[in-house]
């Protein structure tokens, strides 16, 4: 049935291209098949037909394999996630320590921990999603405090200046109330405007 696999000059490598008796290259025939090219020759030529038939056989076995590799139990994403996170928690990247409380108090919070709190505070403002949140000690000695730089996605159709003020207030409040962290400044950058009709709230903390 596979007439074309018995060519005039047998290829030395089984994976090399092959010229069919009609003059077409096997690779050309298969590419035309893949591109669904409209070539009358392919419908008429028995050699090309046989070549396409072989590929069809492969494709149908492939479809079976695709379904089969999936008919077992669905992958257990939860247990894989747990195993991954077990390792990740041994390799945390907490960032730099930041001062808490009074300047002479020897009390610190790690940047990643504080950032998580501040992002959550920013997201209490309706429609706001927080991304990057970098914290660094204010370079001004003595006065202390932490400089916050946060990127947010804001809802479209809202006055951004007022929104930023709200976010700033929530962030400052959370820093003071939840962390006891003196804040020198809160720099808000709006990096995207979200159409509220396409509200994607999944994955929130």
């Amino acid at each position, binding site marked *: 049935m596979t007439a074309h696999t018995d060519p005039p000059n047998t290829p030395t490598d*089984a994976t090399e291209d092959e010229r069919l008796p009609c003059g077409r290259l096997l690779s050309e025939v298969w590419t035309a098949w893949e591109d669904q090219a409209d070539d009358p020759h392919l419908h008429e030529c028995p050699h090309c037909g046989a070549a396409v038939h072989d590929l069809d056989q492969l494709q149908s076995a492939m479809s079976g394999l695709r379904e*089969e590799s999936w008919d077992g139990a669905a992958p257990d994403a939860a247990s894989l996630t747990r195993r991954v996170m077990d390792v990740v*928690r041994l390799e945390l990247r907490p*960032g730099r320590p930041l001062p808490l409380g009074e300047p002479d108090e020897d009390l610190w919070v790690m940047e990643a921990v504080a950032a998580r709190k501040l992002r959550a505070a920013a997201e209490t403002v309706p429609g706001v999603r927080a991304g990057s949140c970098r914290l660094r000690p204010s370079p001004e000695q003595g006065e202390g405090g932490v400089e916050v730089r946060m990127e947010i996605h804001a809802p479209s159709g809202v006055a951004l200046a007022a929104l930023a003020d709200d976010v700033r207030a929530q962030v400052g409040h959370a820093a003071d109330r939840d962390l006891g962290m003196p804040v020198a400044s809160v720099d808000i950058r709006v990096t995207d405007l979200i159409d509220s009709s396409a509200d994607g709230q999944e994955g929130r903390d």
Partner: protein
Amino acid sequence: MAGVRRHTEPPDTRSTGDEGLLAIRAAEGDEDAFAVLVQRHAPSLIRLATRLLGSRTEAEDAVQDAFISAWRRLPEFQGTSSFGTWTYRIVTNRCLNILRARKPVAPLETAGQVPAPEHAVSPARITEARDAVRELREALDLLSAEQRACWVLRELDGRPYDFIADAVGISQEAVRARVFRARRCLTQALGAWR
């Protein structure tokens, strides 16, 4: 005949904005954000690795390692591609390395006798179609690691050539050549066993 072209789900069209934010947070050390991303992408990546490696157990290990590697590399993740595409690439390359490290396979003549590892089907259910699938699964072991990876991404995972080129890190022409050689080898193997 040509109705079989199908393209499965793109890497992640789902809530791209949210995805980008989670990746940034994870890059800044927020492991909870990373956990959400892992949970979200694990199923499709396990499916990909299972197709590449032919073994679910090996696939889960490969995906687990890939995610841990992703966590370590996240600070350098520039966000030029989506997190989904980035991890797809990491998993593909990890699987390629596993395939390359496998022992050379049995020659074509004896390959048909190799028992199917973990997909054994009850004899009563074996039909001709099942036979073809089993033969194909065994024939996949005849391919080089690169041919196998390109063929699997193209045919089982339904990816366009430019996407595969990017994931494997070779030119589109090289991907096409490998897919062709894989098809050539597989059609011959299926034909030879009939």
